[in-house]
């Protein structure tokens, strides 16, 4: 699964640690998601969508559909 987390975070001038605190996960989790090593759970993806005030599909994209 591809995602735009790194771009969206950079637009807001947030560090990985800032985003991790807001999503209540570890910085390692944010790093692993950004690098595509780990796919977030649905609740975490929805939480990210609420935080960025965007539809979930604008943040996370299925690679098979891309």
């Amino acid at each position, binding site marked *: 699964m591809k995602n735009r987390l790194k771009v969206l975070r950079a637009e807001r001038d947030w560090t990985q640690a800032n985003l*991790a605190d807001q999503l*209540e*996960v*570890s*910085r*390692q*989790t944010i*790093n*692993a998601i950004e690098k595509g*090593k*780990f796919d*977030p*759970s649905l609740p*975490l993806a929805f939480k990210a969508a609420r935080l960025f005030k965007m539809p979930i599909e604008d943040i996370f994209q299925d690679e098979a559909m891309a």
Partner: protein
Amino acid sequence: MGKIIDAIACKGLPARDIKNANIANLWIFAWAASLGIISYISDYEWYSSIITITITLIIHIGIGAGMMLAYRRFLKELDELERKIQLDALAFSVGSTILVFSSYSILENAGIVPELSPSILIAVLALTYSAGLIFGRIRYR
């Protein structure tokens, strides 16, 4: 080397997870202490009474149940990447221990090695679990 130290120290986990891990560790320590104390007092003559054995067994099982519940809570509320790492490490640990046990049994039946002590299996379980955790944390760092 820094990566390995960070992996062992579990650096960067949310405060909630550290608190739950500390609670689980206290229960694990209490369980290990109860096992050690019972093993120590079992050498005394007065420990042979069925009532004393039953009481210590109930205490040991009670602490063990508390340990399992604390570990379950720790896993349930854990950061989701760390949870995946923990589950991968548990799968590696259980799988490796079964393989060691079955291989050793074959050698034992053939009379090549002496009888297997259960403490060896606990040590294999602990070592492979720790190795799995460190490998997982380095992999996703």
